[in-house]
């Protein structure tokens, strides 16, 4: 049951609840850094890394510091504070001990400090804790959800990088060139992900 629910949460985060394509979070890097495949992958790696790390820290803080003190309403500002500080700390640590990873993540790490996808993953998971009825939503589920959200981001970025490379050679009407056609194609890619709705529930019935 536990493994089953973990798999279900993981797949749902990638496919049915894709944070970029279904929840429209993190659109800025999605449109900005998806021009080339390698930068798209680099950005996604950084996002996944920070998402898991941020969830790992904010989840217990919410459960054991904010809720007992009736301060749940402070979650947004506290989470922003913690994520920003955390990313800075990770940057310092990486620079010192794993310079290779620091070089490859490069500018993406500070860029995503206050990205809404990160904040969204850490906050929306708290809603799920209250609303999920089929199983108890634990710390492990939250971490898996964050990992899945990161992979979902990667999938969306890589797919969209492919779409954009096709767009480069397409004959686009002048009034639509640049951002307009990018937004239109982004919406079409998002539309394709609607096809997954209900997919995970059918595949892994939990109730």
């Amino acid at each position, binding site marked *: 049951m536990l493994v089953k629910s973990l798999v279900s949460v993981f797949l749902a985060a990638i496919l049915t609840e894709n944070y970029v394509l279904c929840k429209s979070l993190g659109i800025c890097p999605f449109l900005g850094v998806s021009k080339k495949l390698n930068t798209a992958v680099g950005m996604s790696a950084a996002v996944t890394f920070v998402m898991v790390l941020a969830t790992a820290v904010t989840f217990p803080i919410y459960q054991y*510091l*904010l809720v007992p*003190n*009736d*301060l749940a309403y*402070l979650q947004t*500002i*506290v989470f922003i*504070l*913690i994520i920003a*500080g955390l990313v*800075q*700390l990770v940057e*310092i*640590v990486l*620079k*010192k*001990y794993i310079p290779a990873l620091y070089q490859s993540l490069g500018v993406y790490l500070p860029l995503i400090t206050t990205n809404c996808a990160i904040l969204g993953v850490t906050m929306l998971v708290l809603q799920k804790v209250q609303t999920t009825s089929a199983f108890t939503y634990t710390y492990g589920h939250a971490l898996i959800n964050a990992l899945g959200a990161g992979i979902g981001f990667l999938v969306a970025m890589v797919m969209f990088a492919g779409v954009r490379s096709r767009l480069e*050679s397409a004959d686009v009407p002048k009034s639509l060139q640049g951002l307009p056609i990018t937004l239109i194609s982004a919406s079409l890619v998002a539309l394709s992900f609607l096809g997954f709705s209900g997919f995970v529930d059918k595949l892994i019935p939990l109730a």
Partner: protein
Amino acid sequence: MNQTLFAVLIAVLVVAGIGLLIGLILAIASIVMAVPKDEKAEAVLELLPGANCGACGYSGCAGYASALSKGEAKVGLCPVGGEECTHAVGELLGTSGETVKKVAHIHCMGNCDNTTNKADFQGINSCLSASRYGSGITACTFGCLGFGDCVNACLSNAITVCNGVAVVDINKCGGCGLCAEACPRKLITVAPVKEQAVVRCSNKEKGAVAKKACKAACIGCMKCTKVCEAGAITVKDFCATIDPEKCTGCGVCVENCPSKCITM
């Protein structure tokens, strides 16, 4: 009233406390785990042009700067910065180096007057794609396609496509060689600037075939090799090449070339 005030105070205290804690941790971490900066490399980086073209053989200007500061690289590898840059870096590092200004040469004169296209091309606007249709769209299968892949590659806007053939403005050219890599027909070479003759043709067909494709084609007549006193010209595959090291810039070959495809 007191209770509300208390609730507000708690909230403020919690946020301020977390902020302070994180600030403290970051401050300590940045001191404990500070990475020693290479100040010399940063000073050198300031002097480099920052084009990140890679012509020096290192990964961008930062890579070259750090190699310079460690003494692993020679001063004066940067063709873009030119002499000024070399002098400045040399002064900083206490070593001297000489740089030779290099520029790109385009070995084709196939403009609209000399040659024609054998087909109309309506596709992706690049030399690479035009060169892949059959044997390319130009009458000469070695010549400049004129879609300006080199123009796009150029960092200093030194290349223009003029009358169907790419032309380099040697005053602007930094000699980085990015255009030479971009050209699908490998018509561009980078050579030191001096008074010298350059063969403006790359056609390796027999003379008659080459001449039919382009009026300015090198027909491989060997006349230039005979008149050159420095022995700088060789003809291989019916196309002359001039060794820029040996060329004295006397200009005899230019006068004697029947196709007028050698220029100074």
